[in-house]
């Protein structure tokens, strides 16, 4: 087990290294440079040259890369060229928001998808199942940017149940925090619900046809116990894998929702930074996001071993 994790960690480092190159190169290959956005209309040839020198952007790429990487190793991701906010700080304030968005949306998704799947999979292709399946397909067809304005119009402006935009830190006021996060979380949860429900349902249907379920029935166990204790866990592989990919996509992938709900998450910061060629911010966020993805998959892998002991011991 230890060796397994050691090997994984080495792979993690390799992936991180490749990602760091990618993160670095991609922004530097972009047309336009940060001096333009910094100088704005004061852009003159001399000014630009001086500024590039000040920012160290006149050096060869590899040199810039090594400088950056060295700093990264010291925990310094640099700071924004524009507002001088440190990237670490952007991440420190933005990540909790994304994390909360992801956690709440996933809790909602699981809370809806799992019971629904457990319910419908026992009677597949009956009316209730058909309605649920078709309904979740419908959810897939509603992207966040359509959902969000509708949610706000109905639940914020119309019913006044939730605030329309904004964020209150959890530490400051948990209840207000939750109220603020509900609508954006719901806006991104629809796709997740659909995917999770469908995967779990289909896996459950397969699992329920397995001998060990019949075996469990033959022991006299109740249906509820069979569903939760016997059928559920072995049916969660696809769900886990999909959740890994899905959540991975949500890290920094929630920028539309962040934009619409005026949340200062890292997705929005990232998009803004790319548009402004704020290299260090882009590099720093990309790197951390990619690492978060890698770590997430690491966790998913670990969960696989929890869910199915065959994975680690087989």
């Amino acid at each position, binding site marked *: 087990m230890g060796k397994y994790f050691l090997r994984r960690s080495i792979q993690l480092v390799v992936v991180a290294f490749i990602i760091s190159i990618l993160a670095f190169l991609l922004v530097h290959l972009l*047309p*336009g440079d940060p001096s*333009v*956005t*910094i*100088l*704005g*209309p*004061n*852009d*003159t*040839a001399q*000014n*630009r040259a*001086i*500024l590039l020198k*000040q920012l160290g952007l006149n050096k060869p790429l590899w040199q810039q890369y090594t400088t950056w990487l060295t700093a990264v190793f010291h925990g310094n991701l640099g*700071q924004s060229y*524009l*507002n*001088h*906010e*440190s990237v670490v700080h*952007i991440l420190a*304030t933005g990540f909790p928001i994304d994390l909360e968005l992801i956690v709440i949306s996933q809790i909602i998704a699981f809370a809806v998808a799992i019971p629904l799947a457990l319910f419908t999979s026992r009677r597949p292709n009956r009316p209730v199942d058909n309605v649920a399946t078709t309904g979740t397909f419908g959810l897939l067809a509603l992207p966040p940017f359509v959902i*969000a*304005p509708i949610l*706000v*119009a109905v639940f*914020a*402006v119309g019913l*006044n149940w939730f*605030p*329309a*935009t*904004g*964020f209150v830190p959890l530490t400051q006021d948990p209840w207000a925090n939750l109220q603020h996060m509900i609508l954006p979380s719901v806006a991104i949860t629809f796709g997740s619900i659909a995917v999770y429900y469908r995967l779990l349902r289909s896996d459950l249907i397969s699992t329920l046809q397995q001998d060990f379920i019949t075996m469990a029935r033959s022991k006299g166990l109740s249906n509820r116990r069979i569903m939760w204790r016997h059928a559920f866990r072995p049916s969660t592989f696809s769900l886990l894998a999909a959740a890994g990919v899905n959540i991975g996509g949500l890290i920094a992938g929630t*920028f*539309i929702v962040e*934009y*619409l*709900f*005026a*949340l*200062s998450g890292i997705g*929005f*910061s990232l*998009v*803004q930074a790319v*548009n*402004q*060629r704020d290299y260090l911010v882009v590099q720093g966020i990309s790197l951390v996001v990619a690492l978060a993805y890698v770590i997430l998959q690491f966790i998913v892998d670990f969960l696989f071993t929890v869910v199915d002991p065959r994975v680690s011991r087989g």
Partner: protein
Amino acid sequence: MTRANEITRRTFLSRGAVAGGAVVLGGAAGGLLTGCSSSTSTTSTTSSGGKPGVGSGPPVRGGTLTVGTIAEIDGFYPPNNHWDTNGFLYANAIYDPLMAIAADGTIVPYLAQSMTPNSTYDAWTLTLRPNVKFNDGSALTSAVVKANFDALKSSLLAGPALAQITGVTVPDGMTIVYQLEAPNPYFPAGLTTQVGYVVGEAMIKQVQSGTANATPVGTGPFVYSSWQPNDHFTATRNPNYWRSGLPYLDQITFKPIPDTTQREATLRTGGVDMIISSDANTIVNFQGQSGYQLVDSRTGVLGEPTVACLMLNMVTPPTNDLTIRQALAKSLNVTVLQKLFGAGFAKPLDGIFLPGSPYYGNTGYPGYDPSAARQLVAAYKAKHGTPSLELLTVTDPYLAKVVQVVQQMWNQVGFNVSVNEIQQANLITDFVTGEFQAATLAQFGAINPDLNYVWWSTTTISPIGSIGLNFTRMDDPVIEQAMLTGRHTTDQATRVKAYQTVNDQLAQQLPYLWLNQYLFSEVAQDRVQNFDNATLPSGKPQYSFQEGIFWPAQIWLAG
């Protein structure tokens, strides 16, 4: 997120603004200004009775005002940051400018007590208001102002704006003398802008010692409390504010909400008390709505308004051909444009001045004449083939609409127009290097026309591919001459003539095709009192709604 790119570039002393098209506001002010016809900002009626933005009843102390803004400020340090509408909103809360604009357009002292020129207008003496303290307890002295100046001067960003100042001396603790390279009767106007805002020495030291985000230290009505970019900025009441009794509010918070629909929704749900908007639809949505007060810039602003226009490249074919530019101008149906984009509110333009401005005059700008345009295109086509051009714009839903309408109008007279949406960062590069044919632009908001000199000057032309601030590469000695005349004279008649010449010449040469005035608005819930009714320390009415910018010290919340 492209809409976030409404981050606009308001700039330093003598610069008008550029922006890829979206809003930009010439914050600059110039000296000016007699005769500026417009009074202060305009107002519309509100259902709750009374004048919107003007407090009724006695002021009430206390409370927190939350304002939904269009975008985030990029920082609080004048030498290093670009302040747009939001920037100035934040700055007005925590800093004070040396000079300010009165409702009648005159430039009056604010943090300064007085400012006087020498007889040749090339040296200005500024005396500071006594007993003003920064929120860190330090006193406002001429040394601090000098330190501010030095920081600005050495800044790559702000430095060029101060080029005309050859030296600053501090004869005593409260006096500063500015030496100018040439006479400038309108110099004080510059001190109403970003470079006129004074920050405490502690902050300058912090920045110079390398602290990235120095804590703002100002003399303003509120004290910096917290800032989380893209989330909120909060300032709390400055108990020792030099304007006694002010501010009324305990706290003010700004929340950037980039999406207009969501910003309006947030106002409606009470998430914020007040919003700023540069979308004309906001006026439509809130006009006459009970419970809300609407203030907007429809009836005019001091000086030049920010205008939306199309910029044409004067060097690159086919727009280097005057007949083509004329055809392009004649094919624009301004009435339709007004209807579609000003929400029916914007005024038609025939130049950079609105009617009522002393410089306004009939410029002879070509009107809508599609058949004439068709003839011009046909003539061109006979010689050079179908004129095709690319209309460049920045990614923005509003501008997307504009360019599509323009495209159809141009295509209908025989052009072959394609549109291209690019990002702000790329757009500015294309502008300064002249690599465009036609592009959307929002620019020129300035109190003093002189502020726009760099954009039109023959001295700022560069070849295509190299950086030059004369984007259109318009090489017009008449305009150059007129601009210089306007700059140096103190005679109002000469100025009027000079700027009318510029305006006429622009209508002749057609580097810009005028679309409409940019409309800013502020919408507040009824309980927000007095947000458009600021007075100066002297008691005189202040220019309190400057294209989306307001002064927070005198706002109060009705019980």
